[in-house]
């Protein structure tokens, strides 16, 4: 068998005629076309697409090779091409999901397993040391105590509800580690969200604020989180995110409790909270269980405070009602950025 064939890259929007063939190749491998893929590497032999690998930001997806052409050389060329393509797009730290039985195949691509949902899926990254280096940096932030809490916030933007949750956790535990979701995929930028959380938790002494990372609610660990409007909830992917927290982040910081607000409105987050108990607390794992504490959401006049509601009010520039839902630090930021004088149609479009 020879590995000859033309390798080239293609963006789905530029070649709709190829998408049917890619879909068939994937279907033959029990995979589905993922519409988040931004660009594909394809291999064509005598007009036929015989291999494909897709890239969604820094996650490799939709990898398939025609059954009659499977063998080391084609696979390794495909792997090299997709790694090179990612580098050209500025992405060096890559992730992928594989069925557990294909793990050896992706080891050949220089990927190493991180966590596994047994019999279902393995998450891998293209470094033998990246997760260990990350945990090493976390361990430098380790604080002593019997009860150590962890909270992950998207804070889009930071509200009095977030503030209440943080206060509850900080009061009940010896130390609290707060992580801000690092992905720039929300209405507010990561930089703005982080600044507002930092301002909002400033006077809480037993708290460490951590930057986000690819290992905590990112496009790689939990792509469904960023597709909320489509209400797609993929449980296996929530499991991956939570297992990473339980097996790496939790032990590095000695986290014993994970705090989360109840979620009356948002289906994705609500399902995520349910998954939390299962994967952090109940599922079998080499890592110790992390107790999930669900705190009833803070309410104003009987209505739970949510960032969604704040964004809704912001679209109407209703700063008066917003004042009840966000701390002064967030309100001042929003007024500065979105008051009538500063507003532009572009901003409106982003928030609506």
């Amino acid at each position, binding site marked *: 068998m020879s590995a000859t064939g033309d390798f080239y890259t293609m963006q789905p929007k530029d070649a709709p005629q190829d998408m049917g063939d890619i879909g068939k190749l994937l279907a033959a491998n029990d995979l589905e076309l993922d519409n988040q893929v931004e660009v594909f590497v394809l291999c064509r032999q005598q007009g036929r697409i015989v291999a494909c690998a897709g890239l969604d930001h820094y996650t490799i997806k939709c990898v398939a090779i025609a059954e009659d052409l499977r063998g*080391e*050389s084609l696979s*390794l*060329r495909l792997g*090299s091409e997709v790694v090179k393509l990612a*580098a050209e797009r500025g992405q*060096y730290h890559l992730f992928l999901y594989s069925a557990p039985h294909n793990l050896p195949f992706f080891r050949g691509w220089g990927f190493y397993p991180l966590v596994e949902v047994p019999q279902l899926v393995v998450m891998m990254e293209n*470094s033998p040391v990246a997760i260990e280096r990350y945990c090493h*940096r976390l361990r430098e932030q380790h604080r002593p105590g019997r009860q150590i809490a962890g909270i992950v916030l998207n804070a889009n933007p930071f509200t009095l509800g977030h503030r209440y949750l943080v206060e509850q956790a900080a009061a009940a535990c010896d130390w609290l580690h707060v992580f801000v979701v690092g992905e720039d995929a929300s209405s507010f930028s990561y930089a703005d969200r982080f600044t507002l959380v930092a301002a909002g938790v400033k006077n809480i002494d037993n708290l460490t604020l951590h930057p986000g990372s690819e290992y905590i609610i990112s496009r790689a660990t939990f792509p469904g989180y960023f597709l909320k409007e489509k209400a797609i909830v993929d449980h296996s992917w929530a499991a991956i995110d939570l297992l990473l927290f339980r097996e790496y982040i939790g032990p590095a910081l000695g986290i014993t409790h994970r705090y989360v607000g109840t979620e009356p409105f948002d289906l994705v987050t609500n399902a995520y909270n349910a998954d939390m108990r299962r994967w952090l607390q109940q599922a079998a794992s080499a890592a110790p269980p992390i107790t999930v504490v669900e705190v009833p959401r803070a309410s104003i006049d009987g209505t739970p405070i949510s960032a969604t509601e704040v964004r809704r009010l912001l679209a109407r520039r209703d700063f008066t009602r917003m004042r009840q839902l966000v701390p002064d630090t967030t309100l001042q930021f929003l007024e500065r950025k979105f008051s009538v004088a500063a507003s532009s149609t572009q901003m409106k479009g982003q928030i609506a």
Partner: protein
Amino acid sequence: MKVIKEAIAGTLESSDLLVKVAPSHKGTREIVIRSEVIKQFGKQIRHAVTDTLDKLSVSDGSIVIEDKGALDCVIRARVQAAVLRACGSQELDWGRLS
């Protein structure tokens, strides 16, 4: 030479290697080598890598290598290419590498 950004060189194909270079968090030089032939040639591979880095005066950075049984000259060439890209370097004193 100073590593200022991430870069790669090489491939994952047989008899080649993929070299990844990145700025180090600690200001030290960290070399990680994974090879299919680490048991037979691990020492020799490491020597080729460190010698090449020394000649380029790379004293800090993360160097991660995924080796597929490459010959020494290939290892040296790939490490050089990755380092030059990671240092944003256009010019090179080739004499230093001999």
